[in-house]
């Protein structure tokens, strides 16, 4: 039987970008509080990796660790995965509908009226976001920059605190725990909603008992407006965490020693 360990990172994005550091701006939680992890929901989480081994010393159970990352200010996790793109389409449809019916408005009398009404429709619809990649090139995502209420975000009008941020991503796991062969990290694809397509996971060698550091490489996204274009620019940071690996020997459940006959009554 395998044990899946989930480690969740929550980032206060605006504060992290302001400070240019994740210190006091990242909170880590795993699902092992009752199994020995300490400092839950802080930046100093130590995750308990409780392994087991057979009499000959070989590892008895497979251990898998998953890392997930999200922001504090965001649209509710309960929304369906395609909400953002669906809502962007609805906003677009609404904009087209408003433009189409421009001429039938009561208060439209002059060309100036039409121009200003059109202007306000275009402002209302918000901005489509671009994402800047590692080469500095911008790709239009087709998704409207949104606030935490599901409406288009307007810089200046809404305060920055309303912004629903582009989700950060984990780009690598390195450090002592990886170098010493305690964990073997890999990036995988998944249809699971919360994991948003790609995620990092690792198998663990619980034979290497002890406490080990590891480094999580994270890319946050900062919203920038230039020439009427909204783009998410990557900001790279790292955060260190720890694993505490232990291993206990397996034993027979009936005898608590070696295997014997079934204890019929």
């Amino acid at each position: 039987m395998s044990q899946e360990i989930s480690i969740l990172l929550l980032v206060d994005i605006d504060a992290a970008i302001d400070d240019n550091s994740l210190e006091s701006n990242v909170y880590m939680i795993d699902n092992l509080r009752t199994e020995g992890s300490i400092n839950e929901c802080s930046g100093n989480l130590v995750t308990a990796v409780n392994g087991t081994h057979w009499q000959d010393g070989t590892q008895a159970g497979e251990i898998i660790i998953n890392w997930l990352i999200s922001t504090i200010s965001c649209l509710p996790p309960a929304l369906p995965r395609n909400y953002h793109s669906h809502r962007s389409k609805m906003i677009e449809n609404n904009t087209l509908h408003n433009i189409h019916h421009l001429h039938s408005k009561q208060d439209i009398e002059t060309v100036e009226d039409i121009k200003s009404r059109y202007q306000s429709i275009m402002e209302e619809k918000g901005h489509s976001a671009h994402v800047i990649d590692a080469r500095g090139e911008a790709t239009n995502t087709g998704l409207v920059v949104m606030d935490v209420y599901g409406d288009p975000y307007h810089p200046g009008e809404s305060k920055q605190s309303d912004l629903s941020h582009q989700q950060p991503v984990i780009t690598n796991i390195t450090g002592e725990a990886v170098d010493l062969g305690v964990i073997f990290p890999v990036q995988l694809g998944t249809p699971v909603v919360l994991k948003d397509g790609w995620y990092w996971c690792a198998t663990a060698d619980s034979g290497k008992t002890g406490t080990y550091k590891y480094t999580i490489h994270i890319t946050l996204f900062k919203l920038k407006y230039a020439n009427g274009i909204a783009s998410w620019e990557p900001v790279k940071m790292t955060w260190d965490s720890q694993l505490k690996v232990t291993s206990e020997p397996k034993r027979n459940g009936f005898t608590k020693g070696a295997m014997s006959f079934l204890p019929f009554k």
Partner: protein
Amino acid sequence: MQNQINIIVFVDTIGALSSQSLDKFTYAVDNSEFNSTGQGTASLSTICQPGQVIQWIICAIDLQTPAAINNIRFLPVNPESELFEEPDEQQYVNENPDLDVWKGIVPATMIPGVPYRYVFEVVIGEGKNSLLSIQTLSLIRN
């Protein structure tokens, strides 16, 4: 005759925890070469022979909500009546369920044709609602 029979007990851990019952959320299967009855249900009756090793493995359907076997204990067998119900015993809480390998040899004294029912105890999470059990699984010698 196969040396070992594996009994895999699948548990819907969230379902069982929520309703505080394993009855509707347990699906047990075995790989006995004989035709065990109740495959995929909470009433699996595994057909076996003396000398064979039986191993129980628990598998939580949601891997992020693991379950462990707290204990397996056999009910006294009365060949005349199969409907013996055990009164509630003091609950034994296993301190380290993840270390246990539930494996044992079928003894030669097993009476043929009589179901040997056992109490299968499961622990999910930690706390006063974490221990659940069923008594509908059994072994039977053909």
